């Protein structure tokens, strides 16, 4: 077995040094009836080539966005990842290290986490950010719990245009807490009466911007309405590239910002692992979940970094911790950090502009088709269309033509008949004018 270095001679010598006759003498605490139960249904070990062939078999059965025009978004986006990102994250010292518990030999990890926190705070327009969460959905659920801790109030209001996975993840986390969630209906356009629902029992309001239908809104008035009642505004961002071009949530008055960072440096990988971003106002920092890297000095007076404010965390506080999570998304945070560093100020604003104008072009071309109406007024790189017929069979027909044509809203909101004809379409910098031509032609074909 190529990964197991001990030889039979090593094993014999070691057993002898330990003073036992056989390996199962070391398993003597295991009840004998359950030791070495045969597992007949699984195969024996295989060489590298055989394993590679086995996985090629899986790969061949999928349509890869690398070989098909991809207009799918809905919380995960097909962006180009520079070669440098994937090379650097595979450096042994990043890939095969653990959480930086021994800071003297983990300054590499700690410094990039500090840089990552700075990037996230800058992009979201907030004071501070943590060292990442599992993903955007879990970050949002943790933000709601944090708002309840801060306000000590009972109710949270969830926009109906929050990504359903984010809403459902939040419902799961709060299910066995004393807190209530008031979930609004998924109505395209309008604020849906959110302001009027805020009262003195409200811990927070959660909105997504751009929302799940792509609409980007000025949230300033909503933030003021929250603050007038002592509630917090939580803003979730599922397409983090948008922050290169739009007024960030921090500038609109958000108290906590959560985001999915996958778009910058992290592969789609069928939905995970991705990376949750979490930022907030300075005054709430001690109520934050997750790990934090902080600057300090070493015994020689040199600047260095450590994990800090550990008194919030489960390994110290146990049942009184701000969150139960331990592992976060370190390597995905590194990928994000490298990609943002490569882009820089000019690169991220430029990348966002290309995304926006490509989507804008796509919207113009698609709405020129008969029976296709644009439902989103102000968008970044994703929008909703009413295509005048059920969207799901259209998406299947496009897939048969080798095009990943978008997400039927019915997949996100099953049981909402009003959304049956709604198609969510996204365009990133990977979409070419030729791809757009192909989609437009194919849409005409499948509608004929």
């Amino acid at each position, binding site marked *: *077995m190529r*990964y*197991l270095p001990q030889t039979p001679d090593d094993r014999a010598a070691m057993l002898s040094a330990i003073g036992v006759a056989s*390996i199962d003498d*070391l398993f003597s605490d295991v*009840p004998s009836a359950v030791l070495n*139960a045969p597992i007949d*249904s699984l*195969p024996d070990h*295989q060489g590298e080539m055989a*394993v*590679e062939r086995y*996985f*090629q*078999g*899986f790969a061949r059965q*999928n349509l890869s966005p*690398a070989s098909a025009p991809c207009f799918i978004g809905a919380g995960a986006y097909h962006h180009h990842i520079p070669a440098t990102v994937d090379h650097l994250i595979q450096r042994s*010292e*990043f*890939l*095969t*290290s653990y*959480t930086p518990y021994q800071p*003297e*030999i*983990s*300054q590499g990890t700690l*410094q*990039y986490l500090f840089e990552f*926190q700075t990037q996230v705070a800058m992009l979201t327009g907030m004071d501070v950010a943590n060292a990442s969460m*599992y993903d955007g*959905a879990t970050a949002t659920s943790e933000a709601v719990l944090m708002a309840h801790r801060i306000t000590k109030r009972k109710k949270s209001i969830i926009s109906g245009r929050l990504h359903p*996975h*984010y809403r459902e993840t939040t419902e*799961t986390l709060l*299910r066995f807490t004393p807190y209530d969630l008031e979930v609004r209906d998924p109505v395209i356009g309008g604020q849906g009466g959110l302001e009027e629902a805020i009262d003195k029992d409200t811990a927070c309001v959660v909105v997504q911007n751009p929302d799940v239908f792509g609409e*980007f809104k000025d949230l300033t008035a909503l933030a003021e309405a929250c603050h007038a009642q002592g509630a917090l505004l939580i803003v979730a961002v599922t397409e983090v590239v948008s922050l290169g071009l*739009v007024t960030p949530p921090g500038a609109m008055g958000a108290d906590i910002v959560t985001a999915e960072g996958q778009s910058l440096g992290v592969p789609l*990988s*069928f939905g*995970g*692992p991705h990376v949750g971003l979490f930022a907030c106002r300075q005054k709430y920092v001690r109520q934050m979940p997750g790990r934090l890297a*902080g600057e*300090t000095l070493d015994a020689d007076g*040199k600047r260095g*970094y450590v994990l800090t404010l550990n008194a919030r965390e489960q390994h110290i506080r146990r049942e009184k911790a701000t969150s*139960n999570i*331990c*592992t*976060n998304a370190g*390597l*995905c945070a590194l990928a994000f950090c490298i990609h943002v*560093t*490569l882009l820089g100020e*000019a*690169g991220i604003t430029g990348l966002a502009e290309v995304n*926006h*104008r490509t989507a804008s072009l796509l919207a113009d071309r698609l709405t020129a088709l008969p029976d296709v109406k644009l439902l989103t007024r102000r968008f970044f790189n994703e929008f909703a269309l009413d295509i005048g017929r059920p969207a799901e069979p259209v998406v299947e027909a496009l897939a048969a033509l080798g095009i990943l044509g978008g997400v039927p809203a019915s997949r996100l909101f*099953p049981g909402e008949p009003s959304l049956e004809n709604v198609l969510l379409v996204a365009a990133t910098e990977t979409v070419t004018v030729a791809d757009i031509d192909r989609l437009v032609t194919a849409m005409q074909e499948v509608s004929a």
Partner: protein
Amino acid sequence: MSRERETISGARGLDRDEALSFEQDSPGRSGVDLPPVPDAPDRLGDLRRKDAIGLPGLAEPQVVRHFVRLSRMNYAIDYGLYPLGSCTMKHNPRLNERLARLPGIGDVHPMQPQSTTQGVLRLMSELAHWLTELTGMATVAMTPGAGAQGEMCGMMAIRAAHEARGEPRKRVLVPESAHGTNPATAAICGYEVDSIPSTADGRVDMAAFEAKLGPDVAGLMLTNPNTCGLFERDIIRIAELIHGIGGYFYCDGANFNAIVGKVRPGDLGIDAMHINLHKTFSTPHGGGGPGSGPVVFSEALAPYAPLPKVIERNGAFELVEQEDGPRVGRMKGFHGQFGMFVRALAYMQSHGRDGLKQVAEDAVLNANYVMAKLQDLLPPAFPGPCMHEVLVSDKGLDGTGIETMDLAKALIDEGYHPMTVYFPLIVHGAMLIEPTETETRQTLDDFIAVMRGLVEQAKAGEAEYFKEAPTMTPRRRLDETLAARKPVLRWVPDVPLADAAE
């Protein structure tokens, strides 16, 4: 010593500092060339960003150098032994990295039509088969993001099962030696945590456990092998007792590496257990994630496992995202840590059932070998044999003035990552050493020689050095009190640390 000579640059050969990326800014520089902006109308209007973000400009060569220099300040498994107890720092095969990046695997969008994702769904189904077969359990929930979320998933299933029976219960029993995530998870699920003491031999105190059982006990959270590196001999009896009062048995599977391929948790009476794919099944720890924590369930809890799940129907694979029933709700976005599933399945296929059994045996052999070779100087906290890790107290350092942390820091100067220190909490000055199965006898002998040498130096009265250690690292001991008292959590232009710390 020549090492003390100051260099002009401040570097010491290959060892050099690296400024923050923000301190290397040249406005207008970028490491990415973008496609042309299409000619289409702007649709953001007055909600365009008005202020600069503040990100620095660096070209690609600078970025590569920046991160390569940072990487050189890290210890890693690929560099040397990483005996961090309870973390299972084993070799991470590079084949798994290659397979996770195959076109058609690494780049599949989670919201593609299912007709275009049959391969990845079949892959998930295969991994689920391995996990249920290796554990002897009825089903598996694949989605939890890491171990702590797996615990939450399992404990929520327990609570959902009690509520479905119309009898929500209040208390969860947790040994005092448990990982911190256990009580934190129980609290999130709305339970009161009731601590069970340990016996003098490092296991659940059965009398105390039985005394705490009652109709308001929802279940037990127990790590097995436990956090002292020992197999809970009475585990089958423990399962019977908890089932006897209508409770459920949650097992923290963090230490599954000791028994994989040898013992099926389902045969022990466990109802739910998370599996850290980033421990037992070698997916890289990546500096603290991403992990992956699928949860296996017994027949009794299977109806409460969360969605989504993959099923096979008429020869096609189907991702079930919605279904009525008493299930625990969605754990995270999309369908789980799929990239980690690829790596874990590649690891399983490479080892096979024969190799996995060998993994457990060699992991246990290596830990017992370390214990045997250290026990005269550093006696184990509890009598052995141990499982995949050995727990040592600080008794061997009595009278030296040197503490566990000092020994750990001296190990760093000797070229090793230290073991886990001060955990579990029930052992004074605990040192938890987990060598894993991928280390050679020679590596273990070298480590043992260093540990013995350090204890002998400690006993010889070299306390002064130990208190100073490490002395040869990119940074010396860092001031954690300063970091926490006045937290500096991000770079801010033109504010020197000295001012910020006032």
